[in-house]
């Protein structure tokens, strides 16, 4: 997300906004194409025969005839270039094919698993935002010691690996205290530990960004003028500086969503929670090419849409960007 301000040209403002959006949409298609291509190549570069994946997974002692039949049925006997373009053509028509291992349509599998992962990601993002906000405000308002503690907490939080945090939370809150279940089912109490696992490292990162921009804002002339008008210390933060400071954090939420999805692979495995991350992991292990590609495409799509949406939001929130075009 690199936005470069160029000279304003008020007369062509409407046209430039439309062109900006068009360029973003073209970029989105490009990202999806790249994701499909990279996945297509990557899955074929790792060892393992997709035909075997179709016939019961690795190590299966499927007969020659069965393998040949499976290759023909799934078009795996075609030259690799033909397979590639055939696949792109199917994706263009929104046909994601059949999962080898689950023998179900990829769209149906993703549709079933997407909700759980999205809920996890949205709740984690919201909690991370709140935690980051709290730490940022606390550490900028309460003196040097608080600032040191705040930034120390952030650094530690950022550095926590998901798998370590997840197991530690299970040992503390499930095994020792017995407050929350270690297995995350669809009930609300089962969401607490997975959401905490994803939110804490993210909150550390967002907190760092927010505190930096909050400090910047607090030393800006408009804050000084607000103070001169008699605004209280909290009024300055909540009514003036924070709005300013929140922008970079909002802009990062597209990126944050990406890290949450990769974190979901670990979290859904540790907490035995159904979802896209766990499906992706088993699909990779089983060399389930259509399912892996389908999930990667959905994640890439969500990521691109979110990034575009945050950019649009930024342009609305920040008048300076409205006159800018992308470089």
């Amino acid at each position, binding site marked *: 997300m690199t936005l470069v301000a160029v000279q304003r040209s008020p007369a062509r403002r409407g046209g430039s906004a439309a062109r900006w959006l068009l360029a973003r949409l073209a970029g989105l298609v490009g990202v999806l194409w790249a994701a499909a291509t990279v996945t297509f190549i990557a899955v074929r570069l790792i060892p393992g025969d997709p035909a075997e994946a179709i016939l019961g997974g690795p190590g*299966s002692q*499927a007969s020659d005839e069965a393998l040949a039949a499976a290759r023909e049925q799934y078009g795996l006997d075609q030259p690799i270039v033909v397979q590639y373009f055939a696949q792109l053509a199917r994706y263009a028509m929104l046909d994601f094919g059949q999962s080898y291992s689950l023998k179900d349509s990829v769209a149906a599998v993703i549709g079933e698993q997407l909700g759980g992962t999205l809920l996890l990601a949205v709740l984690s993002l919201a909690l991370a935002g709140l935690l980051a906000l709290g730490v940022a405000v606390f550490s900028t308002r309460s003196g040097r010691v608080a600032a040191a503690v705040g930034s120390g907490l952030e650094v530690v939080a950022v550095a926590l690996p998901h798998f370590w945090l997840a197991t530690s939370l299970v*040992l503390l809150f499930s095994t020792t205290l017995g407050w929350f279940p270690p297995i995350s089912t669809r009930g609300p109490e089962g969401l607490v530990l997975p959401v905490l696992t994803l939110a804490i490292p993210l909150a550390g990162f967002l907190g760092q960004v927010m505190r930096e921009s909050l400090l910047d804002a607090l030393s800006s002339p408009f804050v000084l003028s607000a103070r001169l008008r008699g605004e209280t210390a909290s009024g300055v933060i909540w009514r003036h500086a924070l709005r300013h400071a929140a922008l970079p954090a909002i802009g990062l939420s597209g990126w944050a969503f990406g890290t949450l999805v*990769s974190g979901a692979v670990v979290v859904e495995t540790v907490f035995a929670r159904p979802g896209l991350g766990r499906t992706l992991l088993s699909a*990779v*292990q089983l060399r389930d090419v259509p399912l892996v590609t389908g999930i990667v495409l959905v994640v890439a799509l969500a990521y691109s849409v979110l990034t575009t949406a945050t950019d649009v939001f930024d342009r609305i929130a920040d008048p300076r960007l409205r006159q800018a075009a992308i470089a």
Partner: protein
Amino acid sequence: MRTPRLTLALAAVGISALALTGCTTGADTGDAAAPTGNPVPGGTLTYASGDAEPTCLDPHVGGNYPQALVATQYLESLVSLDGTGAPIPWLATSWTEADDSLSWQFTLRDDVVFSDGTPFNAAAVKANIEHVQDPATASSTGYLAVGKVTSVEEISDTVVQLNLSSPDSALLESLTQPWVAIQSPTALARTSDENCESPVGTGPFVVSAWDRQNSITLTRNEHYNSPPADAEGDGPYLDEIVWRFVPDAATRYAALASGEVDIIDNAQPDAIVAAESNDAINELEAPRPGASNRIELNSGKAPFDDERVREAFIRSAGVDDGITSLFFGTAERSYSALSSREATAVSDPDLFTFDPEEANTLLDAAGWTTRDADGYRTKDGERLTLEFPVSTNQSVPAEQSLFEQIQATTKEVGFDVVLEPLDLSSWYTVLGANEYNLVSAPYTKVGPDVLRILYDSAGLVPAPSGYFANHSQVSIPELDELLTRASEITDTAERTQLYADAQKIILDGYYILPLFDQQNHYLYSSEVEGMRAMPTVSTPTFAEAWLDR
């Protein structure tokens, strides 16, 4: 790709959990459930499995252990085994081998009905064997089990005859396995997808729902009347079993300790030790039959084509201390090619004594006389390197740590063991390409005939996928001869002797380094009564289980 990182991450979780819980030890060892008081009907039992979720609930398709675990609850076999490994009646009440040993007749129970209403009879047995043998089913384990069956004849409604290509002394043992369990022919006639989703058998429970990636729901079979001959009680008592998949070992134990689930499988050493001090948790240890967990030495290529180098490796590998410290005493050292469950297993500890001095002498004699700057032995400028691909799906963290200890102890005499953690598909590919010197590959099968699969030179011929089972690449005509004869002779004493001779050749030739039985530990709530492991493939059965709460 993301997989290796996650696998490492999960391994590290195991280790951190180990460190956190490893300090709790206690003296209270749980025994297998002995029913106390009268069974109470009703209730829901929750099972948390650490195995991968099957992609098909019909164990004819493919054929792996996760399928066997859950299928034990809803499918039954013609024959079972008693505690000594002798065949006992199940769906078949009796059987006879023809004088020429080329056919077997099974007399079937006449009062059993599949849970979809289809009667169990000779036609059903025929349909099942044909289903397993149909290439479209894509069976691998079951396919091997009935490999010698050429045709199935209905002699009458209750008598069925299996015709064989050659005598098969392992036939009864093979038929006890869930991978050739008997399903409703009506259900088998549906599409493969439908049958994978809801297979139909005669077992104590019925598959009623499968919420993928979450759970399988099994409900009581109200008309159940066909327990194996050794069953006690009048089950099934449970209303329902919820079969969940919880891949993370620490989470699994936490769920059991907090009462969220009633039983977990694949219990790891740290959890087993922690459970010993917990009165509310019992342990059931049921080593899998077939082969022991062993490291196979690839004798098909240098440097292990030289027996002296193989012996040097085995003499220099410090296994005992590693097992004691990494498994906290939950695993017992094995000196056999076979599981301790197999009555025919031959054990020879003297061949595996730790003797680095002898190892050095052997390597000198084999021409590995020089050492490079890192201390590894060399010959003609080549380092004594051993590729060791490790399947992170099959080797638990404690076992992977044991391999690292072996790496460290064999380094002392100059071996350079290169451990390569791989996911299952990559691992099979590396084996198929013969790019390994050492490998640990578990193999579960009922009976000593597993030796024929693993050590007969026929096991060197790769399947179309490149897979071959004879990882030690043993090719000895005399051994082939012994294993073939043993597979055809039903006389117990003679068969036992033939298998003893065969095992002696395998052990004396230093083709394998046995470690321990295939570990199979279950931890369960003390509220669960009447559970036992099947004497066949060691899967737990809940046919007579009930909840005391």
